[in-house]
């Protein structure tokens, strides 16, 4: 049987990679991908705890469902934003979009 902490460590690793992607990648879409990775890590945690701690209660699953919905919404709006940004700047490089610079 698989110990719980395997899942958790895997989730931590995914989270760290996603974090790196978010912080380091130039392309905005890539940043979004990093966010997705982090969300997935979170979901793994939720379901793992659900499975190992309270499989007879739908709490963890409910949270996971909410996370799915949030992820979908975030991606929809984010990608729409990137398209608008691309129209404006002709690029989606996150470090070229600095209108709010001093």
């Amino acid at each position, binding site marked *: 049987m698989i110990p719980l902490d395997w899942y958790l460590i895997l989730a931590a690793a995914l989270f760290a990679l996603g974090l790196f992607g*978010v912080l380091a990648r130039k392309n905005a879409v890539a940043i979004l991908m990093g966010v997705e990775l982090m969300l997935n890590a979170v979901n793994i945690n939720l379901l793992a705890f659900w499975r190992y701690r309270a499989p007879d209660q739908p709490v963890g699953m409910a949270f996971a469902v909410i996370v799915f919905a949030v992820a979908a919404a975030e991606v929809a709006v984010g990608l729409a934003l990137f398209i608008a940004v691309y129209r404006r700047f002709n690029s989606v490089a996150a470090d070229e979009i600095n209108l*709010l*610079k001093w």
Partner: protein
Amino acid sequence: MPTTTLLWLLPVFPLLAFVLIVLFTNRNKALSHTLAVGAAFLSWLGAMVIFVRALKIGPEALAEHPIHSWVNWLPTGDGYLKIGVMVDPLTAAVLFFVAWTIFMIFLYSVGYHNFGYPEGDHDQKGLPPHGATVVDAHGHKHRVPSIEPMYSRFFAYIGLFAAGMYLLAISDNLLTLFVGWEIMGLCSYLLIGFWFAKPSARAAGIKAFMTTRVGDVFMLLGIAYLYTATGTLSFPDIFKPETLHALASTPSHVLGLSAAGLIGVLLFIGTVGKSAQWPLHVWLPDAMEGPTPVSAMIHAATMVSAGVYMVIRMFPLLKAGSMNGAFFSPLAVMGFIGGFTALFAATIAVAQNDIKRVLAYSTISQLGYMVAALGAGSYIAATFHLITHAFFKALLFLGSGSVIHGMEHGVLHTGNHEVDPQDMFNMGGLAKKMPITFWTFLIGGFALSGFPVLTAGFWSKDEILSSSFFGGHPVIFWTLALAAFLTAFYTMRQITLTFLGQPRTPEAEHAHETPWTMTVPLMVLAFFALTAGWVGIPEHFPLLGGLLPNWFHHWVGATYEGLLEEMGWLEHLAEGSLVPLYTSLTVALGGLFFGWLVYKDVRSPDPAQDPLKKALGPVHTLLQNKYYFDELYGLIFIRPAYWLAEVFTFRWVDRGVIDGILHAIARVVFDLGKILAYGFDLPIISGAGDLIGNIVRTFGRAFRVVQTGRVQDYMVAAMTSVVAFGALVYYLLVFAH
């Protein structure tokens, strides 16, 4: 409608007319005068109804229980200041003539202001109309009178005036009476200065206002004193025996007068101003600058009567004030002032050539009569003469207005505007031109001069003379007798110069009768001028005495009879001697005869040809210049006042002292401000402000590199801090204990 409601409504109608005209209908002349006359008619109707109801009640009952209605108006410390309306026999009598005269004037004004004539060619507001040119069917040009430019405004003013008069007549306390009094003061100012483009009219308006102000201030003092002394202003409360006793017994420490005496004197000074008694008479003749109906009749029939009405109303108080026999007791003062004014004004009137000025001075002297009668202690006679005089003086003035109107027709016809249509020497022989005016004027004149038996003036004047004679005031008696003679004389002089003989000018040739709106009031008033006296024929009068009951004496006497009797001040005159009767007959007929004799054959329009002038010489000049009273006042009051205002107050006090002080302060403050500004504000305060600003800016410059505008840099910072805090928290949680 209940009588009290009707009573409250009397002043409301004209007031309403005033408001409506001023606010809404002043563009529409016909509508405006309809409103005003309609309001006057309503008030007249109401007054008549009230009068009849009062008659039904009967004098004693009415005196005991007047028609009275009041409301709590002003909350004072304890209780309320009540204001209300009241009708007792005196009020009823006054209301009667006030209603009639006011209604008549409103009617008369329509015609006087040429309603129905075209707009003037070059009329402008503030000037009397100069006439208009109309082209008839045959293409002939005619000069015709033009309508008054400020027609509606005029009716608004007299509407307000009527409201004031009614209010004064029906008010049951001194306060509302004073309010009405002041309203009329304002209206007289407005109406005297109605043609405000004429400098003389302006000056006259201001003069009237100022002069009456003098009286009013004293009157207000009296009212205030009365209120402080009694705590009330309503007549029923004041005229209680205990109140009067208290007032009479309280010393005022002024000229040895009792409180009642001082109050009486103060109130009387108000009358002096309002009723133009010497020494405040100067405004009334100038008031003739206004349009004839108003200036004339208001300042003759109603408004000036208000002053007399007030003192009559306050008679018990005055009586109480005169009880301690101080030298300046109100009645004594009134007796002196009244008598002197009567004679003095009569003498001036003798030498005047302006038809209206003559009447003005006669008014002053007649008012003097009434005041003197009061001084002699017979308020009934005063009231009687007040009423009759109101009628015939209104008649005379309207008649003179009609004459002037006719003359203006002539002036328009000849186009010679040099001719003064008011100078009697320019007239003559108008009897044939304007018969109605002539006859009514004749009746009025005879009434004024006391033509025996027929006319009302005779009875009232006889009443006054006899009362003063039997009342034991011989000085007043003889003074008044002489004044009566002069009155008759100048009245006849006026009639002769105006109507009899031949026309002395082409204008007089072409004068003609005035429209019905003017003649009808004349006739109505003439009727009263004849008949108003017959209600007061004394019992002891030979032949006629007792044929008719002395109804008026009975009626008005009832007003204060009970009160005076209770106070024990009611003196029963032992009437038997016929001296006063003969005297009055003599002076009246004699005066009339002499007047006709002297002036029957004046031919030239030149005032210098006045036969009396030849007879009297310098005295005549003195009289013609009214004893130089205006100049005297100018010297004593006006010039000093101007000097005070111009030189002392303005140049010295204001410019020199006050401005000097202010400039000095300003200089000091300015220098101080400079010092503070350059010594403190700039270097220290704003220096510190700039320093802070600079520091902030420097730091901002230093740290702004943080704000790269790149999302990821921010995220890096955020995550760094998250990791740091996480480590910290973990450290605290795990290793702290």
